[in-house]
């Protein structure tokens, strides 16, 4: 009798398992991305960035300019109709995420950065002839503090620290005898500690035995403003800034 019961139970169990498997399968099919079928008509062997890289935007917002990449063949001629897919870390979205290159071999997408500030490493992938071709693109998102820094930098600092001068915001960079460091100059600024940067901003160039052309802003900017400026500098530094992290890793 017990054996019979067990047999019937196992029969039921098998039924449940089958049902569960079916349900899982159905839900899987539902959740699979329903991307429109893009049929590539050509394939390239190289990809280059046309424009839209190295932009700086606010977290969670779309970058000002679209990202444009170009697919080329061996001879360096543009390839039309090649499939390009864009990938990025969690939070980044592309519109569209996959596209065929246009007649001039270019694929254009608009990028919305994630909600976390910092550098975003994006990748454009095209299937290629023999193996997939990847292209890395770097964009930067500014969180609240970093963006406050960028606004303050525009107001107080970039009038001298920005090598680019435009009619809308004139920079005096070219006219200065001692050239200030642009905030993206990671080679120099990455070597300076936060405390050093803060004392140069607050007490002026002579505080670190540098040029007096850099005036002290300690009485004009609050401590939070100075921290924001440093946070901004660290985020846009190129090469990227590596914070002094933990000294040793446990096994």
């Amino acid at each position, binding site marked *: 009798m017990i054996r019979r019961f067990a047999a019937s139970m196992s029969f039921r169990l098998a039924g449940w398992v089958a049902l569960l498997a079916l349900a899982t399968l159905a839900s899987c099919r539902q959740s699979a991305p329903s991307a429109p079928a893009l049929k590539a008509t050509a394939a390239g062997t190289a990809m280059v960035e046309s424009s839209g890289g190295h932009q700086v935007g606010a977290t*969670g917002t779309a970058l000002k300019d679209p990202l444009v990449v170009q697919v080329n063949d061996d001879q360096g001629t543009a390839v039309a109709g090649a499939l390009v897919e864009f990938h990025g870390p969690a939070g980044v979205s592309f519109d569209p995420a996959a596209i065929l290159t246009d007649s001039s071999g270019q694929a254009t997408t608009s990028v919305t950065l994630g909600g976390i500030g910092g550098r975003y490493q994006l990748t454009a992938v095209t299937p290629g002839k023999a193996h997939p071709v990847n292209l890395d693109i770097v964009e930067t998102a500014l969180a609240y503090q970093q963006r406050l820094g960028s606004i303050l930098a525009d107001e107080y600092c970039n009038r001298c620290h920005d090598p680019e001068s435009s009619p809308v915001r004139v920079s*005096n960079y070219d006219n200065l005898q001692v050239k200030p460091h642009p905030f993206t100059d990671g080679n120099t600024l990455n070597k300076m500690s936060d405390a050093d940067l803060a004392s140069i901003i607050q007490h002026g160039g002579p505080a670190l035995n540098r040029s007096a052309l850099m005036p002290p802003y300690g009485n004009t900017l609050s401590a939070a403003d100075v921290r924001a400026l440093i946070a901004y500098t660290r985020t846009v530094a190129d090469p990227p800034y590596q914070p002094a992290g933990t000294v040793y890793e446990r096994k």
Partner: protein
Amino acid sequence: MQFLRKVFSSAGQALFGDPVRAFGVVSVALMLVLAIAPAKDHFSQWHSYQRHYLALIHDRGDAVSLRRRFQPGIHQIWLPELGVVDRCTTCHLGLNEASLADVKQQPFRKHPVVPHSLDGFGCVICHGGQGAATTVDEAHHSERAGEDPILPARYIESGCGQCHQNALPGTPQLNLGRTILARYGCVHCHAIALPDGTRVTATDHPPSLVHVADKTSREWIYSWLKDPQAFAGSTTMPNYKLNDADAGDISAYLISSSKPQAGDAAAADAKSAPGADPAAGASLYGESFCSSCHAVQNAAGNLVGGDVGPELTRIGNKVKPQWLRAWLDNPRIYDATTPMPHYRFTAQQIATLAGYLQAKSDSDYGANVHLDAANAKQIAHGRKLIVELGCAACHEINGVQKPENFAPELSAIGSKPLAQLVFLPGMEHTQASYIVAKIRQPGAFGASVKMPQFTLSAAQTDALTTALLSLTSRARSMPDNLRVAAIPETSYQPTGHAGKLMAELACFSCHRINGRGGEMAPDLTWEGSAVQRQWLGDFLKNPNTLRPSLIRRMPRFNLSESDNKEITDYILAVYQSPAIDPDTAPTATNSPEIVEHGRQLFYSKYACQACHIADTKTDKGYIGPTLTQVGSRLTSAWVYAWLKNPQALRPGTAEPNQNLSDDDARALTAFLTSLKGSAGRGTKQ
């Protein structure tokens, strides 16, 4: 059936057949039931996140201190006065851990630096969502009645706007959104009451249409109504998507109801001198700095110029010549409150400028518009449309009353329950996506929606949405001590003849005085303490620029000698700072030694030449004002006070407060006041 019953009875027999066995089975069942609660707890989502967190910190260098700060169980931030019960920190465990800045994996990342602490404000005040929930779905995505999904990161600045009614330096998107709200005239139709009881006021200047027939033709009004952006891409006038007949009827009513201006249009006509020379017109347009306020599209299609006044790219298509001449002669006759200054042009200048502007036209624009004379029925239909569409909410129109509460009030639109919103198919169910869709395509919400189509870029739409999302019911229930009020625009008005002159010259369109006016030009609240009489009188006659890098400059108003003196006297007498005492300032008896000492300080210790030019031969500081003749421009008392603390005199100025000693400040003042420049230097134009 028979088989099943057999199985059950045999199973019952097997389990409960004998009392001892039955007791055992019941005990096991009871134990299982008792285990349900702890098991539920153990397998709950938050518990699994806490285990993941412990695994994450296990291998880190500072694992010991991280683990010491970790507390198992449900965490809660309870702030009764803010209505906050947030359990987000149960799973978001690394929010306050500075050393987790490199962790990308959510929910363990450190919170970016913001001015408020987690413990003081909780999470949902800025982020939305259900603070009390302990599952991912309920906390982030719930749409049940009275519950809101989490706010997308792109609108996060709306959280700041709930308490901060003032413009914060770190929230450009919110500030832009609020500017658009006022500048695009949203509040002409939608009332918006702020939590402190004040109302959002519009900053645009929709023209009165009472005398519109003097200004333009019915054909132009028709083309304009059909597509305002086709005439001027930068206009804030929305597109009502009118059909041909409706646009024709509205234009017919506007022209037929218009009353002729009682002014002296004929006199202006008689004054006009013929023979306008286009080159002279262009140079007069430039000299008068029209482009400080008005934009014109250049050959490349880019707008060049300010946005205070209307775009002038095709102005010749719009205005009648005699109206334009009368307007240039004195704009306040047609529109008493216009931001445009009364330039006091000569008849010759008016003819030149009018000819130049009239030539700014596009022969293709409205070329195929031919309207037949309208009958009474069409005119009546036009009036009916004007009432229905609410044109009079913005524009003054003869025979139509300004409607009250024309559109829904938006004072709490940011927290309107989702159940009360109508979503389009396929739309994400959030307030943000509703507002965006309503701005982008109001027509999609049905033909009965009267809201017109505004022309806003994606960034502008996001900014406007951010500003609207900050209008929440939570903002209204915040404790008063957390509220930061906006600095309201005062209704300051200078008095007397000088006050009348300043209104005519529209000084407040660009300058700010005593908390009222524009931001384009320097604040003049303390101007009387700052400048010398001779310089001010000369400057008003013939303004030359002080800052080489500026594009927008002060125009010349051909003031009479007596009017010039009137304004100069008024500024010097009234706009005096109580903080500046002329008696304490260094006197004119500065020895050459102290001047030389000041020069040393200027060039070496303080390196002022980084931004200023004291000697045009050697200095290249193009950021601050040129100081070559500062000694004949500013009073020494002002220079001294400015050097001691520039922000006290003009908040927000970029000149740093260098915390000068009295001696250094005195020496620098002596040096600066010795820079008299060459008197009577020609105007740079």
